[in-house]
């Protein structure tokens, strides 16, 4: 994204949800996006996921400039290149696990054999291949979120966009989901995750903080590796000073 702005307007007020927002995410990165409520995190994720328009700037997704694309093209990009993971899982309650995971593949035009193969592969990745006929209500929250991850993975997207994926889970389940995301990232999946959890933000190799619709330089949740290296440098510097 390069100098992207998103402005919401009504009769009396206009709100700059994103202003001159620039960010480049490389393939294979795991980026945590943090920031206070109302800072523009969700707007960023919606724009990044092509769920919302932007008013100014440039956004290039996997080499495709999305500015001015028609609905059909945007839908195809969403389907082929993006996988969404939502805080509330957003599974359709009366569809089986199989049907839920299969949904994006239906709009890609895969035949039944390919769809089945991809659904099973995605469910195997999240460890739920044996539950294809279950309904979401028959699974725990963590399992439901893993189904949602499988749905996001089924189409083999270029990037996963996760909006507080552990927000509705207890710590144990949250841990399992985070481990799953890390595993996926290690296998090469690019992930952008909005989170309020400082520990989760620190786990990933890059985090950015959004304040007032812009990326802030002030790093609250620096990655652990960076913190460790910073503190090692500080000790070394202190030793040098002492010497």
């Amino acid at each position: 994204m390069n100098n992207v702005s998103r402005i919401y307007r009504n009769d009396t007020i206009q709100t700059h949800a994103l202003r001159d927002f620039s960010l480049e995410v490389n393939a294979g990165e795991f980026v945590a996006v943090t920031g206070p409520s109302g800072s523009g995190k969700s707007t960023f994720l919606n724009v990044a996921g092509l769920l919302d328009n932007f008013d100014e700037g440039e956004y290039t997704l996997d080499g495709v400039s999305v500015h001015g694309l028609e609905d059909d093209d945007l839908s195809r990009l969403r389907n082929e290149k993006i996988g969404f993971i939502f805080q509330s899982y957003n599974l359709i309650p009366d569809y089986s696990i199989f049907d839920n995971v299969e949904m994006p593949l239906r709009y890609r035009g895969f035949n039944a054999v390919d769809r089945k193969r991809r659904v099973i592969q995605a469910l195997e990745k999240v460890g739920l291949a044996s539950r294809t006929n279950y309904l979401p209500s028959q699974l725990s929250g963590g399992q439901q979120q893993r189904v949602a991850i499988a749905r996001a993975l089924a189409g083999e997207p270029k990037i996963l966009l996760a909006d507080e994926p552990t927000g509705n889970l207890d710590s144990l389940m949250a841990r399992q989901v985070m481990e799953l995301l890390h595993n996926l990232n290690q296998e090469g999946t690019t992930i952008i995750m909005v989170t309020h959890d400082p520990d989760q933000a620190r786990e990933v190799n890059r985090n950015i903080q959004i304040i007032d619709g812009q990326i802030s330089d002030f790093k609250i949740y620096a990655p652990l590796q960076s913190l460790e290296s910073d503190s090692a440098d500080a000790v070394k510097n202190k030793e040098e000073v002492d010497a």
Partner: protein
Amino acid sequence: MLSYNLKLALQNFKRAPSLYFLVLLTLSIGVGLLCANLALVSSMTGDPIPEKSDKLFHVSMNTWPNDQPNAEPFHILRYREAMKITESDIPSNSAVFYASGVYARDAQSDSLKRFDSSVRATTSGFFALTKAPFAYGNGFAKNSGMEVVIGDQLNQKIFSGENSVGKTLELDGELLTITGVLKPWSLRPLFYHATEGRAFNLTDDVYVPLETAIDLGWSIHARSSSTVSYKGVEFTRDRDVFYLQAWVELEDKTKQQAFQNYLDNYSQTLKDAGEHPLDINNQLRDVNAWLLEQNIVDQKVLAFTLASVLFLCVCVFNASSLLLSRFHSAKFEVGLRRAIGASNKNILNQGLTESVLLGFVAGVVSLFLSWLFLKLSVTFLPDLANIAVLDPKLLLLGMLLALITSVSSALYPLYRANRYTISAELK
């Protein structure tokens, strides 16, 4: 994708059965009521003999012997004019007839049960002119003789539908031999006798040679006028008694003009003889023009049809309102599908598939309701019995109307569904 959309439609029906039942019922009642009315209008305005309705002409003449200023041509003729028409070789077919009635029974039967039967006393050209369909035998060749053709209903009543050609019927005490039996035959409207409120009567039970009926004195069961008194129909041949209707079949405009001249020349001869005080005014009207002239379409039925069109509009608005609430409650799913890659076109197609499926079911239900409405109409208004019919054309129209209304009622809800902000419902 169609099979997937059908599957989603069925799932949606299962999710909100009460709502979809209400939509179905609303549309079905609207379409059913309109179809029932259209069935009546269609019967009233239909062309009863489309293959040659433009070649069959009703003959009206103003040969009234007394001086009556502004007298219009009469739709009934004297015997002498009627015979003049049958003598002409310009028409390829002609028929002159009057309506009567007799009691009929099988002359060989032990049973004395007689059936009240409508009679068409006609010249032999009637069958070819009207394309009357024969099941057995054929028409009588001459305009006299103790022969008779009977309709399917009477044949069913007396001979249980068997081939009764050659059998003898006793008609008002006279014995006549059956030469032909007609197939079930309905003419809507009954163009050959559309006057005196008979346009929607059934075709006749008995067809008998004109001269025979006159000789037997079978009374006139239709409008007649005369300037003289007479004892019975057998005394009408040489008197100013107007009671015969005439139809001719003219192949083209030239024949039509030639026959018009033939009638006018005849009127001129009457005038020359001092028997025709009025202006010469003979008219030929083809089937549809004649039916239009007779104003056979009931204005109340037309008004009620218009009311049912408006009622259907209200039904569509109601169905649309119900579907709007349904689509509103499905905002989450629409948002989710859009997020994972469904385009507006996909959502539109899904909604349209659902509407078409609903339309098909509504079509079937509405046709059943149409049939029910028509049955009820006939119960309360027996005069409608012969026109309250759902023909295949109307069944198709009903189905089409149901589909159109179903899709129409879903258009606005679908438009709204495609305007939802995708991310608004997804957390």
